[in-house]
């Protein structure tokens, strides 16, 4: 089914979340309206206790609003069973948390394949898919590491991989860089930008105003209501699935040239500070690493069975 451009994924109508009664009554969300279109990268900012996390929990079907309407992919999810909600979480929603929330006694690949258990995939298929997605995040060598053996940034990348594995329509990130140093945050934000460029929809809660440069829309919340709502990118320019991939390369070693095949004809080679783009056949020779000199091996003597002389 070809998806329409700028299709609406999430629609919240007058959503209210109230805690307590009478004098102790307080609103985490108050008559909150929000429409999210496919391909948006929304940053939600605001002081503590303004209802950002509650909003994410309601969108993620972990919490139910006191009143109001919630349409996910044009379907009302207000009165569906908790089992159905779990299915939505497995197939339509990806979560990224501030404290990564990986299961500590499962290996990286098992953590990444976790959502597929609940959408009913065989183990081999789960692991294969997880392997594919981990390769995209340059974590293939760490597949069988345990979470505690990874750095914070790596753990968060694993968590992002997990949120993406079932190809959800929306990714919810609750301060994904909150527990990370600036270098790791930068890497994580680059990853999120890549994911977004591939046509994924992201809603992210953050306290860090400098991160808003990544977003296509910035919402400021105050006391459970929208304070400001600024779109920095026009709806028609939002990325959509199938749009040409933005290729990002992190060069880990300057010594060895990095090759990238864009398609069957074009190739990009990054060698030191030189970048070559050309026909895959013509530049083939330039970049091929010199064959290592083989260690001279002593030719093995063939042992012939001794013939016993009669």
């Amino acid at each position, binding site marked *: 089914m070809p998806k329409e451009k700028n299709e609406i994924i999430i629609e919240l109508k007058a959503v209210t979340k109230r805690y307590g009664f009478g004098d102790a009554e307080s609103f985490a969300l108050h008559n909150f309206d929000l429409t999210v279109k496919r391909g948006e990268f929304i940053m939600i900012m605001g002081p503590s206790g303004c209802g950002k996390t509650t909003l994410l*929990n309601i969108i*993620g079907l*972990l*919490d139910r609003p006191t009143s109001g309407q919630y349409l996910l992919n044009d379907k009302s999810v207000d009165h569906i069973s*908790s*089992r159905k*909600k*779990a*299915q*939505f*979480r*497995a*197939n339509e929603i990806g*979560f990224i*948390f501030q404290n990564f*929330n*990986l*299961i500590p*006694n499962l290996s990286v690949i098992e953590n990444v394949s*976790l*959502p597929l*258990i*609940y*959408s*009913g995939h*065989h*183990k081999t298929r789960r692991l294969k898919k997880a392997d594919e997605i981990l390769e995209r995040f340059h974590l293939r060598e760490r597949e069988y590491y345990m979470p505690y053996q990874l750095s914070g940034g790596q753990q968060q990348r694993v968590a992002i991989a*997990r949120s993406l594995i*079932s190809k959800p329509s929306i990714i919810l990130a609750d301060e994904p860089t909150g527990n990370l140093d600036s270098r790791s945050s930068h890497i994580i934000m680059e990853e999120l930008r890549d994911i977004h460029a591939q046509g994924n929809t992201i809603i992210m809660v953050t306290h860090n105003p400098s991160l808003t440069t990544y977003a296509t829309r910035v919402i400021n919340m105050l006391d459970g209501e929208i304070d400001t709502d600024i779109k920095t990118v026009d709806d028609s320019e939002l990325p959509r699935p199938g749009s040409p991939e933005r290729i990002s390369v992190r060069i880990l070693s300057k010594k060895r040239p990095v090759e990238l095949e864009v398609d069957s004809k074009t190739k990009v080679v990054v060698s030191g500070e030189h970048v070559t783009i050309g026909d895959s056949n013509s530049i083939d020779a330039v970049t091929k690493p010199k064959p290592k000199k083989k260690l001279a091996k002593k030719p093995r003597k063939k042992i012939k069975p001794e013939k016993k002389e009669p």
Partner: protein
Amino acid sequence: MALLLNTHLHLAIDSLRRNRGRTFLSALGIAIGVASIVLILSLTGGINQLINANSDRNNADLILVRPLAGKNATESIIDEFTSNNQFTKSSLTLEDVKTISKIEKVSSTAPIAASTNAIKIGNRTVQSVDIVATNADFANIVSLRLKNGQFLESSLRKNVAVLGYDIAMQQFGGTESLAKTFNYNGQNFLVVGVLDKIDDPVNYNGVNLDDSVIIDIDFASTFESSIQIQQIDVRAETTDSVTAITESIHKELSKTKNGDQNFSVITSAEDMHPAGSLLSIVSGMLTLVASISLIVGGIGVMNIMLVSVSERTREIGIRKSVGASSGNILLQFLFESIILSISGGILGFILGYIGAFIISLMTPFAPHISWQIIIITSAVSLTVGILFGIYPAIKAANKDPITSLKYYR
């Protein structure tokens, strides 16, 4: 669904493997309970087999008629033991013996009225001697061998007696006691025969014939006001006719007793043996006591599962947030406890069998593991797993994902 169950099974096995020590200890709790049940059942099974092998050699054509006082089976069994020699009112009469003996294809019929009484040998009084009143057919039914003399016979005079081997040796000065006399209940009796030692002295008749004095029942009924028949032994001509005879006994006796069904007709080998039924009561009681230790083991499993649930609160939250439903979580934890208790059951079965084997080295019987024991133990451990695992699993399933994700340990 099958795929999901399979996945949960693997999840459960994985998480149990991660806590090997804990898993082993809580499974051991179950194992001890199951082991004691297996031990008791296999040993009593062994004893039962030994008894049946001894007493049921050629009893396929045997039918027993016993009085029934309108009680349930267990009570009447206990009653048989406690009141064997007391004069509770028996519902069987000598008339019934005659009625049964007239039924087609019945080869021999013998009533048994046992009592314990004092006899006088010369001037000496011997207390508590088992007096068994029966008729001449008794020798055919029980296939008695005589050491000396002859058995009761209708052609003889009535006041004769046959001695058991032991009582002849102890009270009458040896097996050569023919023509000796004794006095019982004011009547003089002449000893006409002495029995040979019997292999299984206590058999389906419930009387130790080695210690008994056997007298004629028709004669006994002349001087004893009410003779109490505890049992009528009936032997069929062929094994095939047993069922038909059983039916006829029911029919004929009901007729003479005005429709009262105050008797029971027993044909199965195990029921015939009173010792066997007592043994089954005792083994049942022991099993009950052993199952208390199983309950303790089950509580151990529940405890461990509760610890595991609270330890893994965060994991539950994560699983729920990535799409696990409450049912998924419930199954995962339920499977863990079931696996725990079933592996405990298997371990217990092996331990119990080894224990029974070691004990059997010191006793004359071999442990007997029947398929019933295997079914009982597997059913019991499965039940324990579900029973004690369901509460922690429900607790895990009901956890709120938001608060679970905030949980720090």
